[in-house]
């Protein structure tokens, strides 16, 4: 009997944090313009000790003004998607649930696009206008989850196959709507179809959107974490969880809203990046077990690591040109998804 302890949780998170740091350093080095590891470490030290003025302006621009913000964006988007995936898997009691597969990301994309279309007509203050897209994406995500949840039930119980089918059909329906918007709205300053379908981390964010993403991540992931112990019981069945003192209604509402928020935030800044939310939680479950008290934080680190790696590949594989990061995650993720699906049905 080896129950989870706080120190074990911290230790695992520290290890993953160290791996994330190493991956970030490598990602800073990689790119179309070569940067030596020595120069990079020297510059990092200088920044850490407040001597940023000594940096060469070229390094400063490439490493700290272009690559680093993009890596931070990958970290928060990856962590959001991964925590959202783990939460949806528990909420829908389905190991194959994921924001992308179930069409939740597409729903968020539609919400974000609608917000982008409506926003110029409202003459909002800039601070509120910046919030408009994430809120639209959140609403789109929340509505899609609700739709998939109710379509995916049979005789009052969630049915794995029905739920997946409902999600996949919703995703293709919503993609068609995105395509419709993209083809009718020519000339506007809208990001392309590929962004909303495949995901892309190359566009720099306005600072305020960056802060919304970071604060939103900690608030929503924190809210989900307060239900971690309840989610463990919920996986064993709602009937049983209820008799073990779980307030099922409260847990469902918290996880539903917070996970939709995480998806909405991620999609509004990076489009619909697939498979991170599906596969990272599974890998973490294999490594650390299915206790959500350790799964949720490790999934956050794992998602960040995975997306930083994927985005570095997207930047470098066909350098100096770029792939959308969603193409990289899909190439790696789709076969793994099929493997999990087959193993489950076997």
């Amino acid at each position: 009997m080896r129950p989870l302890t706080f120190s074990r949780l911290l230790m695992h998170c520290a290890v993953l944090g160290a791996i994330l740091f190493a991956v970030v350093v490598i990602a800073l080095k990689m790119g179309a313009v070569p940067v030596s590891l020595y120069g990079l470490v020297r510059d990092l030290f200088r920044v850490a000790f407040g001597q940023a003025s000594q940096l060469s302006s070229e390094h400063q621009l490439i490493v700290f003004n272009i690559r680093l913000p993009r890596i931070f964006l990958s970290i928060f988007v990856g962590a959001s998607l991964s925590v959202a995936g783990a939460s949806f898997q528990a909420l829908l009691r389905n190991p194959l649930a994921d924001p992308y597969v179930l069409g939740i990301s597409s729903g968020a994309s539609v919400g974000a696009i609608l917000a982008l279309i409506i926003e110029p007509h409202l003459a909002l203050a800039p601070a509120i206008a910046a919030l408009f897209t994430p809120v639209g994406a959140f609403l789109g995500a929340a509505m899609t989850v609700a739709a998939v949840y109710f379509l995916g039930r049979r005789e009052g119980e969630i049915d794995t196959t029905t739920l997946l089918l409902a999600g996949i059909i919703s995703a293709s329906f919503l993609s068609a709507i995105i395509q419709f918007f993209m083809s009718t709205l020519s000339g506007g300053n809208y990001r392309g179809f590929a962004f909303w379908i495949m995901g892309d981390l190359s566009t720099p964010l306005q600072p305020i959107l960056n802060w919304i993403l970071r604060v939103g991540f900690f608030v929503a992931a924190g809210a989900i974490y307060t239900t971690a112990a309840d989610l463990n019981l919920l996986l064993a069945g709602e009937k049983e969880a209820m008799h073990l003192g779980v307030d099922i209604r409260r847990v469902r509402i918290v996880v539903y809203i917070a996970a939709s928020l995480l998806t909405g935030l991620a999609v509004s800044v990076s489009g619909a990046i697939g498979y991170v939310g599906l596969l990272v939680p599974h890998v973490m479950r294999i490594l650390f077990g299915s206790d959500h008290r350790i799964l949720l934080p490790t999934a956050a680190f794992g998602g960040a690591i995975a997306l930083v790696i994927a985005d570095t590949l997207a930047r470098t594989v066909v350098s100096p040109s770029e792939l959308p990061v969603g193409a990289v995650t899909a190439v790696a993720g789709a076969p793994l998804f099929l493997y999990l699906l087959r193993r489950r049905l076997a």
Partner: protein
Amino acid sequence: MSTHARVPVSGSSRPVAESFPHTDVRLSVEQVSYAYSANPTQAPLFTLEATSFQARPGEIVAIVGPNACGKSTLLKLIAGALAPLSGRVLLNGFITHTLPPRERGQRIAMVQQESPLLFPSRAWEFVLQGRHPYARTLRFETQDDVLIARNALAQVGAEHLTDRWMDQISGGEKQRVILARALTQQPLLLLLDEPTLHLDIGAQVDLLETLRKLAAANRYTVVVVTHELNLAGQYADQVALFQKGKCLRVGPPATVFQRELLEQVFQTQLTVELGSSGRPRVTVPSAK
């Protein structure tokens, strides 16, 4: 530390009745009825007529009757998972269905027909889940919780299963682990929904023997829904016989298991004989 030592609970709930006429009574089912309809405008598809009985600490009550007679519904009403249409279920003076989920989990444990686990877990992880009603948000299990879980596994004779995976043990072993989890809740009331359903006859007797001992040692009040008339007859202190949502009779097995009554309820020919212990035995007469 013994499993029935209760951790003090700070709760906002107050009992609605401070004392019973008979202070010894722990569970009091008072004129409880229920109706289920698929939609509010239609006539109910299923009704449970007003049912009453009482049980003391250490007593085993068996609920028996044909399929779809309301046994499991009554169990859910007792557990507080359903709100009765009329009447109330009191556990030490508290109305069970208005208790907050955590406090209910500290007083009432339910052993159900198991639902499959989504992700594999080990027996000890499963048993420790029974401590959930006592844990604050995000609290990690303490040494006390581990002791209580070990003790519970020992009490049901399942120490050897501690490190096994739940999906790799037999039905009888699983039933023991589920029972152990219920014990870690340190309940006043232990409810079991057809616990013997998929067990062979040896495992069935084992389980009932264990229940008998636990009820005596830890002063649980046990309510068990079962199809096994003979197990009910041998082990229960009271039997409640149901037919089509109606409680026909409640009492000691010998007074409830009357041949004419059972034949009418189960629609088949039966013989009932009293064993030397004064407990009834129900058998099917040999085929013609």
